[in-house]
């Protein structure tokens, strides 16, 4: 165990210590003042520049990395596309020949819609017109409608197949 007393300075400083300390302090302040001011200025400017850069970065992202589309829009369309793809994956459970035909035919239409959406996004990057944005929304609406209609058709076919099976069994 350490002796607690050894941690304290129990000796008094030599005479004239206060005056020497004041002089040293004054001298240091005089010599360091301009340097400190510039440092402070640079720091403040750095902070301001950082804020500006961060703002630009946010703004840049908001526009989707400078491609003319809002970041929110890009995110939403990407999310929607993922959702559409997930729906296509779920559709794989329908494996009868007629269901497969329906899925294939609808998939061709969906691919066309997707290709058109990509064209529209490119067009929007070029001219930034709101009318193109409306067209993109319309395209997404169509994609959604297509999937709903296809689900209805598949359910109907499956129901019909079940009915036929039960009729044949009876």
């Amino acid at each position: 165990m350490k002796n607690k007393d050894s941690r304290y300075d129990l000796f008094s400083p030599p005479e004239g210590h206060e005056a020497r300390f004041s002089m040293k302090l004054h001298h240091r302040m005089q010599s360091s003042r301009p340097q400190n001011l510039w440092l402070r200025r640079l720091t403040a400017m750095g902070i301001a520049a950082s804020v500006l850069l961060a703002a630009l970065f946010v703004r840049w992202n908001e526009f989707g990395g400078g491609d003319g589309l809002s970041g929110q829009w890009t995110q939403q369309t990407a999310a929607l596309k993922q959702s559409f793809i997930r729906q296509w994956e779920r559709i794989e459970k329908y494996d009868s020949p007629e269901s497969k035909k329906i899925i294939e035919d609808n998939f061709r239409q969906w691919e066309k819609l997707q290709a058109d959406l990509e064209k529209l996004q490119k067009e929007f990057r070029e001219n930034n017109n709101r009318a193109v944005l409306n067209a993109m929304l319309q395209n997404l609406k169509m994609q959604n409608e297509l999937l709903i209609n296809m689900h209805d058709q598949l359910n109907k076919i499956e129901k019909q197949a079940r009915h036929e099976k039960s009729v044949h069994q009876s």
Partner: protein
Amino acid sequence: MKRVFINLKLKMVVLALMIVSGIRAQTHEVSKTVIKKFYKVPENGKLKISADFARIHIHTGSGDSLGIKITVRVKSDKRSTADQYLNGITYSVKQSGNTFYIENYQSGSASNYFYNIGVFKNRYVEYESVYEITMPASFDLHIDADYSVLKINDLYGKLYADMDYGRILAGNLQNSGNRIEGDYMTRNRIEMLRGGEINSDFSDFDIDLSFYLKIQSDYSKFHLNHAKTVVFEGDFSHLDAERIKSLYVDSDYARFRVKRLYKLKMQGDFNHLTVERLPSTAQYYDLKGEYGEYVIRNPDRVSFVYHLTGDYSQAQIMDQSITGERTGYYLNNDAKIRFRFDIDFGKLIIK
């Protein structure tokens, strides 16, 4: 020095905050008339317009002059961008023989570096050019205009319109050789389309009267009031009509609802047809396809013979349930209507 620095810092922070929060002072709208011209024209002329993002109003009459007025409107949240758009487009009217061409060239914003890299790109720009045109109704009209609206009263000449994402609002299109192309054309309204073709996927049309109409549009919706002959070749499309004299269909996954239908020849799979009231003067229905569903309602006061073939189909004809091949009739007086159904895995109801 200190004060200057504080001001600079303040300005930077305010600028940053403005950019972050997307604060904008206001929306700026600028417009100017770029062309105003009149020409003396022959009767059998042709007008060709090439313009995107346009609002084209055409007023036809019996005169012999062509009047063109074009106004450009730009709305943006930045005055400089609006001006840039406004000045970046040039319009021209050219004449070659009896054909007049109205074209525009968009130089875009290539000169603005910041605009191109996208950092200072605006949230939106609304740009449109408004065409106000007067011309003889006998003129042919050729329009190539995406994202545009065409408004025209009557036309005796041919209309050829290629308008992706556009719209047509028309009065009487009296020519038999009209052609409308362009995908995603919504809320189109035509009072009369005497004859022509519509090749527009993902679109919808409301047509009051047509004598001959060929529809080659996938995933589209059509509402017809009265039509004499309709040739329908659109997959996944809908047709809703009050009265059609002859309907020829070669489509898959299409849905038809016709209130009164007199002649029908249909082939294709997964189609759905409803005839609300079978007219007593109907002539024949010839249906062929797989997985179709056909409902013919209210045949009470008519007479018909039918011939049904196909596998695994369910049929209900009047009060009879029928499976397999069958020929029969339903008579009120002399048999008039001939039905021939060749349907596999389908459903047929005549009741």
